[in-house]
């Protein structure tokens, strides 16, 4: 994890979906150690906002800066800094958690290190399911596979779309611990959640989409 300070800054974003304007003139700024929770009713544009922040969706107006640089100026560089966990699983159901994680790590250009992968999976609560095909996992176990990626890729910026979905209480606690640790080592987190998020010793910024 980097010790220097990172920041994400959005200025006057406007997003539209099929003739409807979801939000306009939306700005925020977060920096290392901060967590931003995006709130809003169903269909208010949370997912669209997160995807814009990743560079997957192009806002109709406004700019997004990572450490003062527009994110599309050096999108590959930006992608080394970013982990996104969306509504969709983001991994292959036909592979095992271990294979999926090795793939995720390999895609960052790192040599996968099986013991590290195994311990990441144990850590997230998938002990005993490391080599089961993900198709045979339950909803919450699949969610954990998606989250396990965060443990490995070691990027400063995490963008999480409803990460608590399908997790049981133990899973929620583990995720919370993970977030706290990430923030304390200088990470940034942006997440959406319909439940209230409570983290020890972390102040949570909230942004509500109308």
């Amino acid at each position, binding site marked *: 994890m980097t010790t220097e300070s990172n920041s994400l800054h959005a200025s006057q974003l406007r997003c539209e979906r099929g003739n409807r304007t979801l939000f306009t003139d939306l700005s925020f700024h977060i920096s290392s150690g901060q967590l931003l929770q995006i709130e809003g009713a169903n269909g208010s544009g949370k997912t669209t906002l997160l995807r814009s922040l*990743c*560079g*997957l*969706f*192009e806002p109709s107006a406004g700019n997004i800066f990572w450490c003062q640089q527009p994110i599309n100026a050096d999108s*590959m*560089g*930006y*992608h*080394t800094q*970013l982990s*996104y966990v*969306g*509504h*969709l*699983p*983001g*991994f*292959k*159901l*036909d*592979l095992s958690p271990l*294979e999926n994680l*090795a*793939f*995720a790590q*390999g*895609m*960052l*250009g*790192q*040599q996968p290190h099986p013991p590290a992968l195994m311990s990441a999976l144990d850590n997230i609560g998938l002990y005993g399911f490391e080599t089961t095909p993900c198709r045979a996992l339950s909803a919450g176990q699949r969610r954990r596979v998606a989250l396990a990626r965060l443990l490995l890729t070691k990027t400063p910026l995490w963008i999480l779309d409803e990460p608590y979905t399908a997790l049981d209480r133990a899973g929620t606690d583990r995720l919370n611990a993970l977030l706290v640790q990430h923030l304390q080592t200088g990470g940034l987190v942006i997440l959406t959640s319909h439940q209230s998020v409570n983290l020890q010793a972390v102040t949570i910024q909230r942004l509500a989409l109308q």
Partner: protein
Amino acid sequence: MRHALFTLLKRDLLLAFRQPSELINPLIFFLIVVSLFPMGLKPETPFLPMMGAAVIWVAALLASMLSLDSMFRADMEDGSLEQILLSPWPLPLLALTKILAHWLISGIPLVVMAPLLGLMFNLPAEGISALVVTLLLGTPVLSLIGAIGVALTVSLRRGGVLLSLLVLPLYIPVLIFGAGSVWDASLGLSIRGPVLFMGAILVLALTLAPLAVAGALRISLE
């Protein structure tokens, strides 16, 4: 970066050949598809060897096209494609890697089977070697052109039919040169011309297709 691309390639191959037995399934598939045609004929028909070349080439076109959907659609639907787009490497290269995987899965088995299929259709030796050479040059082009089509249609519901409309017309030149060369070679003619031409098509497709695919994928994922 090499490592990342290699990882992607390995994953796609792993998905295709999850079990050792699946390695031979594509081979059997070609054997069945190619042998369908002679089954539709009566024994007394004068089935010319050259028709075998056309049958094999058409099977290659269809096999390549049919397996196209798997190149991006599954990845799109489970969100893996998003993750690939978010990886820190040039998208055209990532696309090229996926195309390579597709070719290894759908093209190579055909090249491997070609001599056997050629024998089944009584092609002369020159014809068989022409078949192998043209398939080796032509099948990658099929995967490359096809990839553009899938990337464009991947965000649409059932792209199947639309895809074949986009892709098959572009396949036709490859078919004509490929099957034509086998024909010429069997008659003892030189096939340098068509083979060079197919090489040129391949180089062109190799340079342009990945860019087009990358652009199309970005649009599809919005």
